[in-house]
């Protein structure tokens, strides 16, 4: 799949944002006053910023409201609802923290749960696609949730939690690569099944249907070199998970420490998300003899 920058940005930032908001909502961190304004602002900023980045990806963003209509069948629609509900639920908590109103935290906990639901919905947009076998696996939601949680904790500077979740993230990333690499074969799709010509013999492309480019080739068929991918996998695991862990273990707690950890985590997250798309092979590539 084409690793579109807008989508990578959207999923990484909004995931981070919702993870962070969840911690705030749950009350793991309870900021106060101006600090609260800033911290909640960061959370909202990431979540909303990420969402709007995804609009760059749309052909007709002016009709985006229609995306709320199909919640009964569409994960994208559910994600839209979930994110809006989450942001609304958390608003009073943020207000309370900022203005020191001391409202009860119950609604914040509900919001925190909704953060998880939102990230889950985002991940299901990918995980539901059977045509991309690498995504179509339970490890995909786990990966998204894991990123959100660990990212949130890192950003919150909750060192112990962050280290714990980061190690978890490393495991999930590894699991993702492990299962992902086996999914295409497990799905059973091949040029033979795509064409139905396997009964005659081995199928290969003689001529492509067009020598010019098209949407399918641009959007769904992206071939990434194996060596390149292996390098990026290392970077993803090291930077996203072990980097922040090391930073929190080795350096004293300080804003700079947190920023460093966040930066490393984001670097790894972008690499991981780039790979999430770039390594995902759509079965339509079979028709083009390209995987």
């Amino acid at each position, binding site marked *: *799949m084409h690793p579109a920058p807008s989508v990578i940005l959207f999923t990484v930032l909004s995931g981070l944002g919702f993870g962070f908001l969840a911690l705030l909502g749950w009350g793991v961190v309870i900021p106060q006053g101006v600090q609260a304004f800033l911290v909640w602002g960061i959370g909202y900023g990431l979540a909303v910023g990420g969402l709007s980045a995804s609009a760059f*990806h*749309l*052909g*007709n*963003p002016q*009709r*985006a409201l*229609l*995306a*709320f*209509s*199909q919640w*009964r*069948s*569409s*994960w*994208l*629609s559910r994600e*839209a609802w979930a994110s809006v509900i989450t942001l609304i639920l958390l608003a009073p908590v943020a207000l309370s923290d900022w203005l020191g109103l001391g409202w009860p935290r119950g609604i914040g906990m509900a919001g925190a749960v909704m953060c998880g639901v939102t990230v889950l919905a985002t991940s299901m*947009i990918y995980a*539901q*696609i*059977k*045509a*991309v076998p690498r995504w179509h696996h339970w490890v995909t939601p786990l990966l998204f949730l894991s990123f959100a949680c660990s990212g949130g904790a890192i950003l919150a500077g909750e060192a112990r939690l962050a280290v714990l979740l980061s190690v978890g993230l490393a495991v999930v990333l590894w699991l993702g690569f492990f299962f992902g690499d086996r999914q295409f074969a497990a*799905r*059973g*799709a091949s*040029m033979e*099944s*795509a*064409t*139905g*010509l396997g*009964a*005659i*013999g*081995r*199928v*290969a*492309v*003689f*001529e*492509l*249907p*067009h020598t*010019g*480019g*098209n*949407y*399918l080739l641009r*959007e*769904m068929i992206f071939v990434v070199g194996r060596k390149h991918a292996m390098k990026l996998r290392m970077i993803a695991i090291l930077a996203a998970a072990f980097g922040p862990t090391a930073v929190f273990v080795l350096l004293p707690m300080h804003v700079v420490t947190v920023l460093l950890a966040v930066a490393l985590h984001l670097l790894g997250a972008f690499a991981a998300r780039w790979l999430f798309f770039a390594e995902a092979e*759509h*079965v*339509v590539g079979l*028709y*083009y003899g390209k995987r």
Partner: protein
Amino acid sequence: MTMLPGATEKRLGLVVDLDTCVGCQACVTACKGWNDQGYGVALSDQNPYGAEPSGVFLYRVHSYAVQPVDGLAQTINFPRSCLHCEDAPCVTVCPTGASYKRVEDGIVLVNESACIGCGLCAWACPYGAREMDQDAGVMKKCTLCVDRIYNENLPEEDREPACVRTCPTNARHFGDFADPDSKVSKLVAARGGYDLMPEMGTRPTNKYLPPRVKDRRAEASLLAPLLDIEAKGFAGWLDRVLGKI
């Protein structure tokens, strides 16, 4: 609505005969020609005369090399368009309801005025049957020529999809799969029509007819010489041949 209708009254679709398609691409341009000025926005092209031309087509014809275990390699031309699946994943993923499957005939369509161009349906389709229009930012796909098949302004014989009407070899057939007596149902039964990528669970309506067995050895026994020409000479052969008149 992007919920799929449980069952549709008719199941309209195409049969593609891989034994007959010569790969002439006539259907590809006929499809683009009709749909360029029919249902929805025109099918745009980018840099049509430039160094990297590109554009939307609803339909493509591939060509494959198939190598039997022992036997001569074959070339098989392979038309590919929307299969109007019964379990169409492209429909259920759509957040806006733009993508839908019609209850009355099972045609899968995009309501372009509701499409936000998110591209998710194209991801969901295993068959590459959807292409986004770069100019209009909406998803385009085969409409089964819904604006031809019911169009009373067209002469009767033109009320079938443009690709079917155009195909000079008759490698494409249009009809109702819900009717066991329709031409398409009979063809599928007689020739072993099959689904593409059944493992995707899409239950395509369109069916493909496999190429007939090729390069069979002739069953007839070889011709026997009339007589031993070397021994009997040409004259002997001539007598023998003409004696037969």
